[in-house]
């Protein structure tokens, strides 16, 4: 029985460690701020991610040179964005996206050097957790039940007295 519990404790610990690593990675590389947060807190740093929707009628510039200006809107605030970087393939008005760059408090604009995908990590994580956690519980429950059954059969001494049967229960 102990081997069963040891095995599953290892799996559980591994899962927790992975979850911690994943959430750390998410916070550092994938999480994005809203325009309201940027305007309110004036964050410093060169790789700030901001998520918002390109406001209608504000997109100007040349796609080919990769130099564009638009307004990025959140729930209440609008962020003027100046983008200079690789020519974006599918930058349109009314599209939600992530801009990566710096915030200039003096001019109150956001200078972006890259665009990011709006990734639906929530759905991916939900699906994997919904599949793997019940699966783990199910398999653990089965293995535990089998161990208990082997132990019960051994203890109730239901074997032939002549030949001693070695019941290998973990």
């Amino acid at each position, binding site marked *: 029985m102990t081997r069963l519990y040891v095995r599953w404790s290892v799996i559980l610990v591994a899962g927790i460690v992975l979850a911690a690593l994943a959430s750390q990675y998410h916070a550092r590389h994938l999480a994005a701020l809203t325009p309201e947060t940027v305007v309110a807190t004036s964050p410093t740093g060169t790789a700030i991610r901001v998520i918002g929707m390109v406001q209608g009628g504000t997109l100007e510039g040349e796609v080919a040179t990769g130099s564009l200006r638009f307004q990025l809107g959140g729930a209440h605030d609008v962020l003027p964005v100046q983008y200079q970087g690789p020519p974006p393939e599918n930058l349109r008005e009314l599209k939600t996206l992530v801009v990566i760059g710096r915030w200039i408090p003096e001019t109150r604009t956001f200078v972006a050097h890259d665009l990011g995908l709006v990734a639906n990590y929530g759905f*991916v994580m939900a699906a994997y957790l919904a*599949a*793997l956690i019940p*699966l783990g519980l199910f398999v653990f429950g089965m*293995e535990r*039940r089998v161990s208990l059954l082997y132990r019960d*059969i051994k203890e109730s001494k239901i074997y*032939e007295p002549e030949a001693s049967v070695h019941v*290998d229960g973990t």
Partner: protein
Amino acid sequence: MISLVIKRLQRYEGWVGGAAALCLVTGLYLGLIASPPDYYQGEVVRIMYVHVPLAHTAMLAYGVLFGASIWYLWKRDPIVDNLAHAAAGISAFFTAAALVTGSIWAKPTWNTWWTWDARLVSFAVMFLILAGYLMMRTFVDDPEREARYAAVLAIVGFADLPIVHFSVEWWRTLHQPLSISMRGVSMSGEILVPLSVMSTGFTLLFGYMLMVRTQMLYLTRLLQAKKGRLLSHAHVAQSGPQVGSQPSSAH
């Protein structure tokens, strides 16, 4: 006293389980970290790496249930009945998981939690048939009759599934001309590798779960029989000489 087949299952289950774990960990790494997001669907395509293997394994498990049911009616081996029962339980679980992950995948992709697609409806019907099978098995008192009825139910249910699929397919083309853009996934090699690894891992996992669950059902029946809780034939396969009773290995 415990059948040789069961002892062999117990000896080899570790290998299958270990191989399954290895494949799954590799597949998870490949699917979640190493592979790129899809051109159309973005990150959400990663759900496919868990949804598709679940669906395939659920169907494989149902096939095992069908085969084991026919085998049971032919040979009346109680362990084969345990195998069928085990396959049904696992298939029900995997079907439910496939439906849930499919629904979670559908929401960001097609903006709807459910669509009356032929495959999804067939899966839902398959789940209901399996649930009915498992319920019925708990309501029958005599184990030998339970095994017989269950085998018949599994065979009739299996025969019905293709007809269900076709009828829903026809019905759907009548009422929902493809308004949902069913853009597929760009099947590149980068998508195929994690998918195959996860599929192999889930198939091995199914094999392992089948071995464990068959043992569980067999041992439960054995314990009941030995403790005299069964009034009719024990309907358990055993090996070796019994003290005082006849071997009841076949009906």
